[in-house]
Protein backbone atom coordinates (compact mmCIF):
# COMPACT_ATOMS: atom_id res chain seq x y z
CA UNK A 1 0.00 0.00 0.00
CA UNK A 2 2.88 2.31 0.87
CA UNK A 3 4.59 1.40 -2.36
CA UNK A 4 1.48 2.25 -4.34
CA UNK A 5 1.28 5.57 -2.51
CA UNK A 6 4.92 6.36 -3.36
CA UNK A 7 4.43 5.40 -6.99
CA UNK A 8 1.19 7.34 -7.36
CA UNK A 9 2.60 10.59 -6.01
CA UNK A 10 5.58 10.47 -8.35
CA UNK A 11 3.64 9.37 -11.43
CA UNK A 12 0.77 11.78 -11.10
CA UNK A 13 3.04 14.66 -10.13
CA UNK A 14 1.06 15.27 -6.99
CA UNK A 15 2.02 18.54 -5.36
CA UNK A 16 3.82 18.12 -2.07
CA UNK A 17 1.34 20.31 -0.26
CA UNK A 18 -1.49 17.98 -1.24
CA UNK A 19 0.01 14.57 -0.62
CA UNK A 20 3.64 13.94 0.28
CA UNK A 21 5.63 10.84 -0.57
CA UNK A 22 5.77 8.20 2.14
CA UNK A 23 9.54 8.17 1.84
CA UNK A 24 9.62 11.83 2.82
CA UNK A 25 7.28 11.16 5.73
CA UNK A 26 9.49 8.33 6.90
CA UNK A 27 12.50 10.64 6.93
CA UNK A 28 10.55 13.26 8.84
CA UNK A 29 9.60 10.72 11.49
CA UNK A 30 13.20 10.63 12.54
CA UNK A 31 14.37 14.09 11.50
CA UNK A 32 11.64 15.93 13.34
CA UNK A 33 11.58 13.66 16.35
CA UNK A 34 12.88 16.49 18.48
CA UNK A 35 9.57 18.21 17.89
CA UNK A 36 7.29 15.22 17.60
CA UNK A 37 8.41 13.26 20.64
CA UNK A 38 7.85 15.97 23.26
CA UNK A 39 4.55 16.74 21.56
CA UNK A 40 3.58 13.07 21.80
CA UNK A 41 4.42 12.99 25.48
CA UNK A 42 2.35 16.08 26.13
CA UNK A 43 -0.65 14.62 24.33
CA UNK A 44 -0.11 11.26 25.99
CA UNK A 45 -0.30 12.91 29.38
CA UNK A 46 -3.62 14.54 28.51
CA UNK A 47 -5.03 11.29 27.20
CA UNK A 48 -3.86 9.17 30.10
CA UNK A 49 -5.08 11.51 32.80
CA UNK A 50 -8.41 12.14 31.11
CA UNK A 51 -8.93 8.43 30.58
CA UNK A 52 -7.97 7.48 34.13
CA UNK A 53 -10.29 10.12 35.52
CA UNK A 54 -13.08 8.68 33.38
CA UNK A 55 -12.43 5.20 34.76
CA UNK A 56 -12.20 6.49 38.32
CA UNK A 57 -15.60 8.15 38.08
CA UNK A 58 -17.50 5.90 35.68
CA UNK A 59 -16.80 2.61 37.48
CA UNK A 60 -18.09 3.60 40.94
CA UNK A 61 -20.99 5.40 39.32
CA UNK A 62 -21.86 2.28 37.34
CA UNK A 63 -21.79 0.25 40.55
CA UNK A 64 -24.09 2.73 42.26
CA UNK A 65 -26.50 2.90 39.35
CA UNK A 66 -26.70 -0.87 39.01
CA UNK A 67 -27.22 -1.59 42.68
CA UNK A 68 -29.89 0.87 43.50
CA UNK A 69 -33.05 1.34 41.54
CA UNK A 70 -33.46 4.70 43.26
CA UNK A 71 -30.11 5.93 42.01
CA UNK A 72 -30.78 4.58 38.59
CA UNK A 73 -34.08 6.33 38.22
CA UNK A 74 -32.79 9.64 39.47
CA UNK A 75 -29.23 9.84 38.19
CA UNK A 76 -29.25 7.87 34.99
CA UNK A 77 -31.55 10.18 33.00
CA UNK A 78 -29.30 13.07 34.01
CA UNK A 79 -26.22 11.26 32.83
CA UNK A 80 -27.82 10.36 29.52
CA UNK A 81 -29.00 13.92 28.91
CA UNK A 82 -25.54 15.19 29.66
CA UNK A 83 -24.20 12.69 27.17
CA UNK A 84 -26.40 14.13 24.45
CA UNK A 85 -24.55 17.44 24.56
CA UNK A 86 -21.79 17.18 21.93
CA UNK A 87 -18.63 17.28 23.99
CA UNK A 88 -16.64 18.52 21.08
CA UNK A 89 -18.81 21.64 20.99
CA UNK A 90 -17.97 22.23 24.64
CA UNK A 91 -14.25 22.34 23.98
CA UNK A 92 -14.05 26.09 23.21
CA UNK A 93 -16.08 26.81 26.35
CA UNK A 94 -13.77 24.67 28.43
CA UNK A 95 -10.80 26.54 27.01
CA UNK A 96 -12.27 29.79 28.28
CA UNK A 97 -12.89 28.28 31.72
CA UNK A 98 -9.82 26.15 32.15
CA UNK A 99 -7.22 27.87 30.01
CA UNK A 100 -4.94 26.70 27.27
CA UNK A 101 -3.08 24.13 29.33
CA UNK A 102 -3.40 20.49 30.30
CA UNK A 103 -6.67 20.87 32.20
CA UNK A 104 -8.84 21.62 29.20
CA UNK A 105 -7.53 18.74 27.10
CA UNK A 106 -7.84 16.43 30.06
CA UNK A 107 -11.46 17.49 30.52
CA UNK A 108 -12.39 16.91 26.88
CA UNK A 109 -10.67 13.53 26.91
CA UNK A 110 -12.51 12.70 30.12
CA UNK A 111 -15.90 13.78 28.81
CA UNK A 112 -15.56 11.74 25.65
CA UNK A 113 -14.33 8.56 27.30
CA UNK A 114 -16.64 8.60 30.29
CA UNK A 115 -19.88 7.32 28.79
CA UNK A 116 -18.71 4.10 27.08
CA UNK A 117 -17.05 2.98 30.30
CA UNK A 118 -20.15 3.75 32.34
CA UNK A 119 -22.55 1.99 30.00
CA UNK A 120 -20.44 -1.09 29.42
CA UNK A 121 -19.74 -1.50 33.11
CA UNK A 122 -23.44 -1.16 33.90
CA UNK A 123 -24.31 -3.76 31.31
CA UNK A 124 -21.68 -6.07 32.75
CA UNK A 125 -23.01 -5.69 36.26
CA UNK A 126 -26.62 -6.16 35.23
CA UNK A 127 -25.99 -9.14 33.00
CA UNK A 128 -25.39 -11.52 35.84
CA UNK A 129 -27.44 -14.64 35.16
CA UNK A 130 -30.31 -15.15 37.56
CA UNK A 131 -29.09 -18.68 38.24
CA UNK A 132 -25.83 -17.36 39.66
CA UNK A 133 -27.75 -14.88 41.74
CA UNK A 134 -30.01 -17.61 43.10
CA UNK A 135 -27.04 -19.80 43.88
CA UNK A 136 -25.29 -17.02 45.71
CA UNK A 137 -28.38 -16.31 47.77
CA UNK A 138 -28.77 -19.98 48.62
CA UNK A 139 -25.15 -20.12 49.68
CA UNK A 140 -25.74 -17.25 52.07
CA UNK A 141 -23.51 -14.79 50.27
CA UNK A 142 -23.16 -11.41 51.94
CA UNK A 143 -23.58 -8.33 49.77
CA UNK A 144 -19.84 -7.75 49.95
CA UNK A 145 -19.03 -11.27 48.76
CA UNK A 146 -21.74 -11.17 46.17
CA UNK A 147 -20.20 -8.06 44.67
CA UNK A 148 -16.49 -8.78 44.89
CA UNK A 149 -16.54 -12.50 44.25
CA UNK A 150 -19.29 -12.75 41.71
CA UNK A 151 -20.65 -9.54 40.18
CA UNK A 152 -17.43 -7.64 39.70
CA UNK A 153 -15.36 -10.42 38.08
CA UNK A 154 -18.20 -11.26 35.74
CA UNK A 155 -18.47 -7.61 34.68
CA UNK A 156 -14.77 -7.23 33.87
CA UNK A 157 -14.97 -8.34 30.22
CA UNK A 158 -17.58 -5.65 29.60
CA UNK A 159 -15.50 -3.10 31.44
CA UNK A 160 -12.49 -3.81 29.26
CA UNK A 161 -14.60 -3.54 26.14
CA UNK A 162 -15.80 -0.15 27.28
CA UNK A 163 -12.29 0.95 28.18
CA UNK A 164 -10.91 0.01 24.80
CA UNK A 165 -13.54 2.07 23.03
CA UNK A 166 -13.06 4.88 25.53
CA UNK A 167 -9.31 4.95 24.95
CA UNK A 168 -9.75 5.77 21.28
CA UNK A 169 -12.22 8.50 22.20
CA UNK A 170 -9.82 9.89 24.78
CA UNK A 171 -7.27 10.34 21.99
CA UNK A 172 -9.83 12.21 19.91
CA UNK A 173 -10.74 14.36 22.89
CA UNK A 174 -7.18 15.38 23.59
CA UNK A 175 -6.52 16.27 19.97
CA UNK A 176 -9.74 18.27 19.65
CA UNK A 177 -8.81 20.13 22.81
CA UNK A 178 -5.46 20.94 21.30
CA UNK A 179 -7.01 22.09 18.05
CA UNK A 180 -9.08 24.65 19.91
CA UNK A 181 -6.07 26.15 21.54
CA UNK A 182 -2.78 24.81 22.73
CA UNK A 183 0.89 25.47 22.82
CA UNK A 184 1.97 21.88 23.13
CA UNK A 185 1.00 18.46 21.92
CA UNK A 186 0.54 16.60 18.66
CA UNK A 187 -2.68 18.41 17.83
CA UNK A 188 -0.77 21.61 18.06
CA UNK A 189 1.93 20.24 15.75
CA UNK A 190 -0.72 19.18 13.25
CA UNK A 191 -2.31 22.61 13.28
CA UNK A 192 1.01 24.38 12.79
CA UNK A 193 2.07 21.97 10.05
CA UNK A 194 -1.25 22.47 8.33
CA UNK A 195 -1.07 26.23 8.37
CA UNK A 196 2.43 26.07 6.92
CA UNK A 197 1.28 23.60 4.29
CA UNK A 198 3.97 21.29 5.64
CA UNK A 199 2.18 18.10 4.70
CA UNK A 200 5.20 15.99 5.46
CA UNK A 201 5.19 17.09 9.08
CA UNK A 202 1.44 16.74 9.12
CA UNK A 203 1.61 13.10 8.08
CA UNK A 204 4.50 12.45 10.40
CA UNK A 205 2.43 13.89 13.23
CA UNK A 206 -0.50 11.68 12.30
CA UNK A 207 1.83 8.68 12.24
CA UNK A 208 3.06 9.46 15.76
CA UNK A 209 -0.51 9.96 16.92
CA UNK A 210 -1.59 6.65 15.47
CA UNK A 211 1.39 5.02 17.14
CA UNK A 212 0.34 6.53 20.44
CA UNK A 213 -3.19 5.22 20.03
CA UNK A 214 -1.83 1.78 19.23
CA UNK A 215 0.38 1.75 22.29
CA UNK A 216 -2.53 2.75 24.46
CA UNK A 217 -4.75 0.06 23.00
CA UNK A 218 -2.01 -2.54 23.32
CA UNK A 219 -1.44 -1.58 26.95
CA UNK A 220 -5.12 -2.07 27.65
CA UNK A 221 -5.08 -5.35 25.83
CA UNK A 222 -2.15 -6.58 27.92
CA UNK A 223 -3.91 -5.48 31.08
CA UNK A 224 -6.99 -7.36 29.93
CA UNK A 225 -5.04 -10.54 29.31
CA UNK A 226 -3.64 -10.30 32.79
CA UNK A 227 -6.95 -9.49 34.44
CA UNK A 228 -9.29 -11.87 32.65
CA UNK A 229 -7.22 -14.69 31.19
CA UNK A 230 -10.20 -16.98 31.60
CA UNK A 231 -12.40 -15.13 29.19
CA UNK A 232 -13.53 -16.76 25.99
CA UNK A 233 -11.86 -14.05 23.94
CA UNK A 234 -8.44 -15.11 25.18
CA UNK A 235 -8.68 -18.78 24.53
CA UNK A 236 -6.55 -19.68 21.56
CA UNK A 237 -7.51 -22.93 19.92
CA UNK A 238 -5.25 -23.45 16.98
CA UNK A 239 -5.56 -27.21 16.86
CA UNK A 240 -7.95 -29.60 18.54
CA UNK A 241 -6.79 -30.34 22.03
CA UNK A 242 -5.30 -33.73 22.74
CA UNK A 243 -6.73 -33.85 26.19
CA UNK A 244 -9.54 -36.28 26.76
CA UNK A 245 -12.83 -35.00 27.98
CA UNK A 246 -15.51 -37.29 29.33
Amino acid at each position, binding site marked *: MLLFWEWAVITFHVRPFVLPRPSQVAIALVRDANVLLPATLATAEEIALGFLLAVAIAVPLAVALSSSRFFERTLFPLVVSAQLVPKVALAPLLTVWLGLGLATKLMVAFLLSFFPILIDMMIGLKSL*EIGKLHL*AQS*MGASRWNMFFKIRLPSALPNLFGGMKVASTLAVVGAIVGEFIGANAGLGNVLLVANSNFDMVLNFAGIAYLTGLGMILFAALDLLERWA*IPWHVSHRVRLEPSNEAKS
Partner: protein
Amino acid sequence: MSSVAVVFDRVMQVFGSDDGDVVALENVSFAIEPGEFVSLLGPSGCGKSTLLLALAGLVRCSSGRITIGGRIVDRPYTDLGIVFQEPHLLEWRTVLRNVMLQAELRGLDRARAEAHADALIDRVGLGQFKQRLPHELSGGMRQRAAICRALLHDPPLLLMDEPFGALDALTRDDLNLELQDIWLRSPKTVLFVTHSIGEAVLLSDRVAIMSPRPGRIAEIVSIDLPRPRGLAMRETPSFGAYLRKIRETFTAMGVLRAEPASASS
Protein backbone atom coordinates in the same frame (compact mmCIF):
# COMPACT_ATOMS: atom_id res chain seq x y z
CA MET B 1 -25.15 -36.51 58.72
CA SER B 2 -28.63 -35.24 59.20
CA SER B 3 -31.69 -34.52 57.18
CA VAL B 4 -34.86 -32.53 57.60
CA ALA B 5 -38.53 -32.85 56.87
CA VAL B 6 -40.18 -30.59 54.34
CA VAL B 7 -43.84 -29.60 54.36
CA PHE B 8 -45.76 -27.89 51.60
CA ASP B 9 -49.05 -26.57 52.89
CA ARG B 10 -51.59 -25.32 50.35
CA VAL B 11 -48.94 -23.54 48.30
CA MET B 12 -50.30 -21.27 45.60
CA GLN B 13 -48.22 -19.36 43.13
CA VAL B 14 -49.81 -16.79 40.90
CA PHE B 15 -47.82 -14.67 38.47
CA GLY B 16 -49.31 -11.51 37.05
CA SER B 17 -48.85 -10.92 33.36
CA ASP B 18 -50.16 -8.66 30.61
CA ASP B 19 -52.69 -11.27 29.61
CA GLY B 20 -54.00 -11.83 33.10
CA ASP B 21 -52.92 -13.93 36.03
CA VAL B 22 -51.04 -17.15 35.49
CA VAL B 23 -51.60 -19.76 38.17
CA ALA B 24 -48.35 -21.68 38.29
CA LEU B 25 -49.10 -23.68 41.41
CA GLU B 26 -52.50 -24.50 42.78
CA ASN B 27 -52.97 -25.81 46.28
CA VAL B 28 -49.86 -27.93 46.51
CA SER B 29 -49.75 -29.85 49.77
CA PHE B 30 -47.48 -32.70 50.61
CA ALA B 31 -44.74 -33.65 53.02
CA ILE B 32 -41.28 -35.12 52.60
CA GLU B 33 -39.86 -37.24 55.40
CA PRO B 34 -36.32 -36.69 56.63
CA GLY B 35 -33.87 -38.59 54.46
CA GLU B 36 -36.42 -39.25 51.74
CA PHE B 37 -35.60 -38.94 48.04
CA VAL B 38 -38.64 -37.45 46.36
CA SER B 39 -38.95 -36.62 42.69
CA LEU B 40 -41.22 -33.94 41.31
CA LEU B 41 -42.22 -35.29 37.95
CA GLY B 42 -44.21 -33.37 35.40
CA PRO B 43 -44.27 -31.83 31.91
CA SER B 44 -42.62 -28.51 31.08
CA GLY B 45 -44.44 -25.55 32.50
CA CYS B 46 -46.21 -27.49 35.23
CA GLY B 47 -44.61 -25.42 37.95
CA LYS B 48 -42.19 -27.94 39.36
CA SER B 49 -39.24 -25.58 39.10
CA THR B 50 -41.34 -22.84 40.66
CA LEU B 51 -42.14 -25.14 43.56
CA LEU B 52 -38.47 -25.91 44.05
CA LEU B 53 -37.54 -22.23 43.96
CA ALA B 54 -40.31 -21.51 46.46
CA LEU B 55 -38.93 -24.22 48.74
CA ALA B 56 -35.50 -22.60 48.52
CA GLY B 57 -37.04 -19.27 49.41
CA LEU B 58 -35.86 -17.75 46.16
CA VAL B 59 -39.41 -17.09 45.07
CA ARG B 60 -42.18 -16.11 47.45
CA CYS B 61 -45.40 -18.04 47.16
CA SER B 62 -48.60 -16.10 46.75
CA SER B 63 -50.22 -18.01 49.56
CA GLY B 64 -49.70 -21.12 51.60
CA ARG B 65 -46.74 -22.11 53.70
CA ILE B 66 -43.55 -24.05 53.29
CA THR B 67 -41.55 -25.32 56.21
CA ILE B 68 -38.16 -26.98 56.37
CA GLY B 69 -37.45 -28.78 59.62
CA GLY B 70 -40.35 -26.91 61.13
CA ARG B 71 -39.00 -23.48 60.13
CA ILE B 72 -41.12 -21.38 57.82
CA VAL B 73 -39.45 -20.40 54.58
CA ASP B 74 -39.97 -16.71 53.91
CA ARG B 75 -36.58 -15.68 52.49
CA PRO B 76 -33.72 -17.46 50.70
CA TYR B 77 -33.05 -20.54 52.80
CA THR B 78 -29.38 -21.27 53.16
CA ASP B 79 -29.14 -24.56 55.04
CA LEU B 80 -29.37 -26.53 51.85
CA GLY B 81 -27.48 -27.42 48.70
CA ILE B 82 -28.94 -26.58 45.33
CA VAL B 83 -28.11 -27.71 41.82
CA PHE B 84 -29.71 -26.17 38.75
CA GLN B 85 -29.88 -27.37 35.20
CA GLU B 86 -27.04 -24.99 34.37
CA PRO B 87 -23.97 -25.64 36.52
CA HIS B 88 -23.37 -21.90 36.95
CA LEU B 89 -19.73 -22.34 37.79
CA LEU B 90 -17.73 -19.14 37.99
CA GLU B 91 -15.75 -19.03 34.75
CA TRP B 92 -12.71 -17.46 36.37
CA ARG B 93 -12.27 -20.06 39.10
CA THR B 94 -10.80 -23.53 38.90
CA VAL B 95 -12.91 -26.56 39.74
CA LEU B 96 -11.48 -26.68 43.25
CA ARG B 97 -12.01 -22.98 43.87
CA ASN B 98 -15.54 -23.22 42.50
CA VAL B 99 -16.37 -25.99 44.94
CA MET B 100 -14.65 -24.02 47.71
CA LEU B 101 -16.89 -21.04 46.96
CA GLN B 102 -19.48 -22.74 49.13
CA ALA B 103 -17.07 -22.70 52.08
CA GLU B 104 -15.91 -19.15 51.41
CA LEU B 105 -19.38 -17.70 51.31
CA ARG B 106 -20.33 -19.48 54.52
CA GLY B 107 -17.12 -18.74 56.36
CA LEU B 108 -16.35 -22.40 56.96
CA ASP B 109 -12.99 -23.58 58.23
CA ARG B 110 -10.76 -23.51 55.21
CA ALA B 111 -8.53 -26.53 55.80
CA ARG B 112 -11.41 -28.86 56.62
CA ALA B 113 -13.42 -27.59 53.70
CA GLU B 114 -10.56 -28.07 51.29
CA ALA B 115 -10.00 -31.63 52.47
CA HIS B 116 -13.68 -32.36 51.99
CA ALA B 117 -13.68 -30.66 48.60
CA ASP B 118 -10.72 -32.76 47.50
CA ALA B 119 -12.50 -35.91 48.60
CA LEU B 120 -15.76 -35.01 46.86
CA ILE B 121 -14.04 -34.02 43.64
CA ASP B 122 -12.07 -37.25 43.65
CA ARG B 123 -15.19 -39.25 44.32
CA VAL B 124 -17.03 -37.89 41.30
CA GLY B 125 -14.04 -38.62 39.12
CA LEU B 126 -12.79 -35.09 38.55
CA GLY B 127 -9.63 -35.57 40.60
CA GLN B 128 -7.35 -34.77 37.68
CA PHE B 129 -9.25 -31.65 36.78
CA LYS B 130 -9.10 -29.81 40.07
CA GLN B 131 -7.03 -26.97 38.66
CA ARG B 132 -8.91 -26.70 35.39
CA LEU B 133 -11.21 -23.86 34.46
CA PRO B 134 -14.85 -24.61 33.63
CA HIS B 135 -14.42 -23.96 29.93
CA GLU B 136 -11.99 -26.85 29.81
CA LEU B 137 -14.64 -29.27 31.02
CA SER B 138 -17.55 -30.95 29.33
CA GLY B 139 -21.12 -30.29 30.46
CA GLY B 140 -21.24 -33.47 32.50
CA MET B 141 -18.01 -32.65 34.25
CA ARG B 142 -19.20 -29.16 35.08
CA GLN B 143 -22.39 -30.49 36.54
CA ARG B 144 -20.44 -32.95 38.66
CA ALA B 145 -18.43 -30.02 39.99
CA ALA B 146 -21.68 -28.19 40.74
CA ILE B 147 -22.89 -31.22 42.70
CA CYS B 148 -19.69 -31.25 44.74
CA ARG B 149 -20.21 -27.60 45.49
CA ALA B 150 -23.77 -28.27 46.64
CA LEU B 151 -22.58 -31.01 48.99
CA LEU B 152 -19.47 -29.38 50.42
CA HIS B 153 -21.12 -28.14 53.59
CA ASP B 154 -23.02 -31.41 54.07
CA PRO B 155 -26.48 -29.86 54.03
CA PRO B 156 -29.49 -31.75 55.38
CA LEU B 157 -31.50 -30.88 52.29
CA LEU B 158 -30.52 -31.14 48.62
CA LEU B 159 -32.57 -29.52 45.88
CA MET B 160 -31.98 -30.44 42.28
CA ASP B 161 -33.77 -28.82 39.37
CA GLU B 162 -33.40 -31.07 36.33
CA PRO B 163 -29.66 -31.30 37.02
CA PHE B 164 -29.01 -33.70 34.18
CA GLY B 165 -31.46 -32.20 31.71
CA ALA B 166 -28.81 -30.53 29.59
CA LEU B 167 -26.68 -33.64 29.25
CA ASP B 168 -26.73 -36.49 26.79
CA ALA B 169 -28.64 -39.62 27.77
CA LEU B 170 -25.63 -41.80 28.50
CA THR B 171 -23.98 -39.23 30.73
CA ARG B 172 -27.32 -38.78 32.39
CA ASP B 173 -27.62 -42.48 33.18
CA ASP B 174 -24.11 -42.49 34.57
CA LEU B 175 -24.68 -39.45 36.73
CA ASN B 176 -27.94 -40.93 38.02
CA LEU B 177 -25.94 -43.79 39.44
CA GLU B 178 -23.33 -41.36 40.76
CA LEU B 179 -26.01 -39.39 42.56
CA GLN B 180 -27.49 -42.50 44.08
CA ASP B 181 -24.06 -43.51 45.28
CA ILE B 182 -23.44 -40.14 46.88
CA TRP B 183 -26.86 -40.11 48.50
CA LEU B 184 -26.55 -43.63 49.89
CA ARG B 185 -23.25 -42.77 51.53
CA SER B 186 -24.52 -39.58 53.08
CA PRO B 187 -28.29 -39.66 53.33
CA LYS B 188 -30.12 -36.40 53.17
CA THR B 189 -33.54 -35.22 52.16
CA VAL B 190 -33.65 -34.70 48.42
CA LEU B 191 -36.20 -33.00 46.21
CA PHE B 192 -35.40 -33.84 42.61
CA VAL B 193 -37.19 -32.17 39.73
CA THR B 194 -37.34 -34.06 36.47
CA HIS B 195 -39.45 -34.70 33.44
CA SER B 196 -38.12 -38.20 32.93
CA ILE B 197 -40.31 -40.96 34.27
CA GLY B 198 -37.44 -43.43 34.19
CA GLU B 199 -35.13 -41.15 36.10
CA ALA B 200 -37.73 -40.51 38.75
CA VAL B 201 -38.42 -44.21 39.28
CA LEU B 202 -34.75 -45.11 39.33
CA LEU B 203 -33.77 -42.59 41.96
CA SER B 204 -36.74 -41.99 44.23
CA ASP B 205 -38.50 -43.29 47.30
CA ARG B 206 -41.61 -41.51 46.11
CA VAL B 207 -42.58 -39.76 42.92
CA ALA B 208 -44.89 -36.75 43.13
CA ILE B 209 -46.63 -36.45 39.78
CA MET B 210 -47.60 -32.93 38.82
CA SER B 211 -50.34 -31.93 36.44
CA PRO B 212 -49.85 -29.36 33.68
CA ARG B 213 -50.52 -25.75 34.58
CA PRO B 214 -52.05 -24.92 36.97
CA GLY B 215 -49.66 -27.26 38.72
CA ARG B 216 -51.21 -29.61 41.21
CA ILE B 217 -49.97 -32.81 42.77
CA ALA B 218 -51.99 -35.33 40.81
CA GLU B 219 -50.67 -38.41 42.53
CA ILE B 220 -47.81 -39.60 44.69
CA VAL B 221 -46.40 -43.03 43.87
CA SER B 222 -44.26 -44.94 46.32
CA ILE B 223 -41.40 -46.77 44.65
CA ASP B 224 -40.81 -49.99 46.48
CA LEU B 225 -37.65 -51.21 44.80
CA PRO B 226 -34.54 -52.34 46.66
CA ARG B 227 -31.40 -50.26 46.68
CA PRO B 228 -28.83 -49.82 45.32
CA ARG B 229 -30.70 -49.67 42.02
CA GLY B 230 -28.73 -50.23 38.85
CA LEU B 231 -29.48 -49.45 35.25
CA ALA B 232 -30.24 -53.13 34.64
CA MET B 233 -33.16 -52.85 37.03
CA ARG B 234 -34.87 -50.71 34.41
CA GLU B 235 -35.41 -53.84 32.38
CA THR B 236 -37.20 -55.74 35.14
CA PRO B 237 -40.97 -56.23 35.26
CA SER B 238 -41.39 -54.50 38.61
CA PHE B 239 -39.63 -51.41 37.27
CA GLY B 240 -41.77 -51.60 34.19
CA ALA B 241 -44.88 -51.75 36.32
CA TYR B 242 -44.01 -48.42 37.91
CA LEU B 243 -43.23 -46.90 34.53
CA ARG B 244 -46.59 -48.05 33.26
CA LYS B 245 -48.49 -46.76 36.26
CA ILE B 246 -46.98 -43.31 35.93
CA ARG B 247 -47.32 -43.27 32.17
CA GLU B 248 -51.01 -44.09 32.52
CA THR B 249 -51.44 -41.24 34.96
CA PHE B 250 -49.94 -38.85 32.43
CA THR B 251 -52.10 -40.25 29.67
CA ALA B 252 -55.19 -39.76 31.82
CA MET B 253 -54.14 -36.14 32.36
CA GLY B 254 -53.69 -35.62 28.65
CA VAL B 255 -49.96 -35.02 28.92
CA LEU B 256 -49.32 -38.11 26.82
CA ARG B 257 -51.59 -38.97 23.97
CA ALA B 258 -53.36 -42.35 23.81
CA GLU B 259 -51.33 -45.23 22.45
CA PRO B 260 -51.62 -45.99 18.71
CA ALA B 261 -54.18 -48.72 17.99
CA SER B 262 -51.57 -51.23 16.84
CA ALA B 263 -49.55 -51.07 20.09
CA SER B 264 -49.69 -54.22 22.21
CA SER B 265 -51.31 -53.83 25.61
